[in-house]
């Protein structure tokens, strides 16, 4: 029985047609969040002017030598520990040779036969079921520079080379071919990215190229043991593109085979505008990179004691936090997932709950309102002036009926924009709930008088209309009425 690829929480629900299955392996290049490059002291700030983030080492000048950045190794080891990999006491750097203008040494320093981490896995949720995609390996390597082709220049164009990226530390995380569809691929990438961000190992910023994905895709008829010929999809720079490109590629391959053709092993790119993949190069024979151990770098030795220190310093990871939220606080899987996907959100939520123990009530405010405000602000949560303690105070005002939920949201928006004390904001803006039942009773009579037809229908059994009256009451008070008092007053008035 093949496993049905199911809808991931936010992915597509597309799956290969009956009788076919897809086999997908992903290679993720994650940029390590260091201050300097893997083998030089140059910084690697994004968006700096071309070639300004370089030393003689990054430029590949004659005579230079690489010296390993221990912080990069530390972040790589943290990632490997969190992914449950087997750390190798000794690994080797190797040179991978090819000629290209943005590869200044004519070789890339990578790890080949002996990477620093083997095995491990990425937990994903697929169709509500927890599953682990196993990893083949993780290795450390340096990034290449960037070629910028300028066809506008007379004489057939010119290529500019920017070496700011050259030497930027990367880990390449290679999965086993255990992913069965685009939705699973998306779930895998989200989980992996979330994990790396938890560890402060990688910003996960896809637009800045800090988290890049290549996908190896093949198809076979269900029940077939042998793997089909695979193609490699390159430079998929958003989760959505990854899913769309994989879906397109699976369909393309199946169509090819069903039409009596055969898949050719090749590297393909993704054209987002056309919504299709295109051939980049066909591998008639595997390119010979002439790998050999880099004689400039001694074996990378990982000290047992150091590893244990790093292991002890790992933060609690999203999976464990999610389980805790469900078990201890009774949150739904879905809400727990939203709250734990990012460390800053989970941290914020836990600080909130420490001050305001009704986790369930708090979870909705964070998962919906706080995240919306953050998205609108386009900043990270820690950058917003909103403090968990202020939100806790606000929630207590809501619980006490002093602020209606609608006004509460208005106050929250103000807290997110400028910070401050919720009660003060409430008073300044005149947002205190109208909770005087006498005042509200008068208003209720006015509302009912204005809607005789709805009153008639309600009384003849259309109980749903009760909410309509509540809405009218809230409208009349511009959302300031305390909902429990409104409900009570309405009931009494309707029953008169």
């Amino acid at each position: 029985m093949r496993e049905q690829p199911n809808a991931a929480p936010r992915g597509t629900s597309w799956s290969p047609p009956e009788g076919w299955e897809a086999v997908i392996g992903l290679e993720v290049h994650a940029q390590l969040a260091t201050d300097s490059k893997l083998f030089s002291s140059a910084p690697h700030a994004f968006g700096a002017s071309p070639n300004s983030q370089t030393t003689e080492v990054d430029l590949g000048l004659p005579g230079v030598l690489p010296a390993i950045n221990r912080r990069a190794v530390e972040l790589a080891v943290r990632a490997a520990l969190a992914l449950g990999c087997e750390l190798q006491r000794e690994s080797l750097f190797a040179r991978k040779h090819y000629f290209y203008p943005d590869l200044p040494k004519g070789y890339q320093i990578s790890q080949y036969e002996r990477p620093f981490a083997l095995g491990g896995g990425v937990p994903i949720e697929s169709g509500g079921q927890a599953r682990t995609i196993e990893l083949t390996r993780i290795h450390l390597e340096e990034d290449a520079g960037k070629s910028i082709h300028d066809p506008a220049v007379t004489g057939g164009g010119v290529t500019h080379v920017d070496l700011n990226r050259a030497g930027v530390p990367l880990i390449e995380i290679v999965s086993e071919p255990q992913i069965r569809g685009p939705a699973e691929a998306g779930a895998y990438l989200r989980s992996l990215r979330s994990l790396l961000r938890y560890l402060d190992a990688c910003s996960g910023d896809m637009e800045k190229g800090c988290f890049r994905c290549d996908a190896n895709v093949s198809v076979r008829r269900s029940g077939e043991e042998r793997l089909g010929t695979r193609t490699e999809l390159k430079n998929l720079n958003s989760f959505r593109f990854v899913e769309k490109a994989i879906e397109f590629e699976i369909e393309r391959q199946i169509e090819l085979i069903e039409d009596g053709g055969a898949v050719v092993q090749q590297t393909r790119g993704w054209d987002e505008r056309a919504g299709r993949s295109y051939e980049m190069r066909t591998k008639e024979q595997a390119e010979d990179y002439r790998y050999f151990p880099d004689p400039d770098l001694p074996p990378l030795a990982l000290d047992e004691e150091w590893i244990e220190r790093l292991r002890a310093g790992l933060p609690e990871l999203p999976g464990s936090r999610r389980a805790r939220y469900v078990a201890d606080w009774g949150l739904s899987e879905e809400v727990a997932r939203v709250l734990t996907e990012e460390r800053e959100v989970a941290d914020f939520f836990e600080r909130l709950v420490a001050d305001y123990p009704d986790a369930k009530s708090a979870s909705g405010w964070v998962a919906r309102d706080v995240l919306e405000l953050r998205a609108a602000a386009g900043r990270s949560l820690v950058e917003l002036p909103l403090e968990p303690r202020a939100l806790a105070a606000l929630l207590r005002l809501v619980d006490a009926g002093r602020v209606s939920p609608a006004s509460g949201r208005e106050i929250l928006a103000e807290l997110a924009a400028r910070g401050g004390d919720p009660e003060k904001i409430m008073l300044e803006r005149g947002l205190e709930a109208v909770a005087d039942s006498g005042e509200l009773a008068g208003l209720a009579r006015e509302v009912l008088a204005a809607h005789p037809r709805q009153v008639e229908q309600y009384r003849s059994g259309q109980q749903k209309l009760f909410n309509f009256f509540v809405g009218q009451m809230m409208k009349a008070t511009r959302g300031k009425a305390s909902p429990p008092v409104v409900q009570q007053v309405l009931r009494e008035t309707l029953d008169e």
Partner: protein
Amino acid sequence: MSALVEHTLCELAERVEAGEASCREIVAAHLERIERADGEIGALLGVRASEALEEAERADALRASGSAPSKLAGLPLAVKANLVSPQLESNCGSRILEGFRAPYQASCLERLREAGLVLLATANMDEFAMGSSCENSAFAATRNPWDPQRVPGGSSGGSAAAVAARMAPAALGSDTGGSIRQPAALCGVVGLKPTYGRVSRYGLVAFASSLDQIGPLARSAEDAAELLGLIAGHDPRDSTSVAGPVPDFRGALSGEVSGVRVGVPAEFFSREGADEESMDLVRQAVGAIEEIGARTCGVSLPHTEYGVATYYLLCTAEASSNLSRYDGVKYGFRAPADSLEDMYRRTRSLGFGAEVKRRILLGSYVLSAGYYDAYYLRAQRVRTLIRRDFEAAFETCDVIATPTVPGPAWPLGEKTGDPLQMYLSDVFTATVNLAGVPAVSIPCGFTRAGLPVGLQLIGPALGEETLLRVADAYQRHTDWHRRSPALPGH
């Protein structure tokens, strides 16, 4: 000719200290010597005449105020053209780097400049240090000061010839398979290849990274010790450099060798095709060392016969990789072309000389899929055996004495058509690099034709002190290193 150029570096330092000469006079004397002799010898590629004089004057001033940074401050030195410096053109004897000046300083040069030494000139070399005769330089064929019809050896041929011809009291070279010791032997000077990792390679243009090592060429073991003390030591920029304190190499020169066990490997003296006269001179030198108190004993280095083959597999593999960066994109020579691939092809075809291209091809082959195991990996295994040979030998002796080269300097052009013959001149030196141990070549006599012959002393890893002590003791009892070639201007 000024007598100043006949002095060793340490002697010059003493004379300056005693007020008998100024650094400016010393630099001027060497510049004059260069002016007279280098037209014929062709040892130097570039001379910093006015800058060197200015720097020497500044050193004199510092000395006068008692603030000279070291004993050698203000004294001149020649530098092989594969060490980079903003002060020098580091063309590596290659068209592809013609005019290249690095924006950074090689670690060893930084240290020498901090000690106040004056970088006088760049010395010619076989292109990218690939060669044993200096004939592979794209710019000039250096001649041997003892017989200008003969080669000076290589690849540090310019450094060795400059020191022999008294154009510089000392020089820096690099040694990958014998490139310091072999030209030192053929030119009658001292050449020291330190332990791999003793001197930072940062700023040495790489030929074969696991074998390359920077070292001094000088006229006495004492000078070599003094210079080594300045350039040795850990460098965070070179991950293969050795950690730990630097010994006082010059302080180790006690003149005392009694009790030192000198191992003599018979197979080095009975090599077919070796020059008997040279071998005899080396044997006599070993006898002389015994006479001054050392003991000799037989040792065996059974894998020596695989040394040259192993060396050429590994050094070409690494060279093919290291030389990938010369692609015409970033610096150096670029050939005009219509496409990127054409640009690469033409730049590298025109920019590199024949021997460099031969080694890139050989090395690419050694590393290519399907041949890697048979060549590269097997060579690495043999390298381990060779290293173990030395480790075993050093259990029974402190120093190993061998000839440096199978024979004296040969006529220009004699081996250029036969690369294999050229490669075989590394037979006594290359295994030392494979083992990573230190060795020094010192002058130990002259053939009847008046050509110098070198004695090689090899030590265990980080054993430079004993090595230099024996070499220095020998020089206290001989004057081969004092002899000066007859040159134009005499």
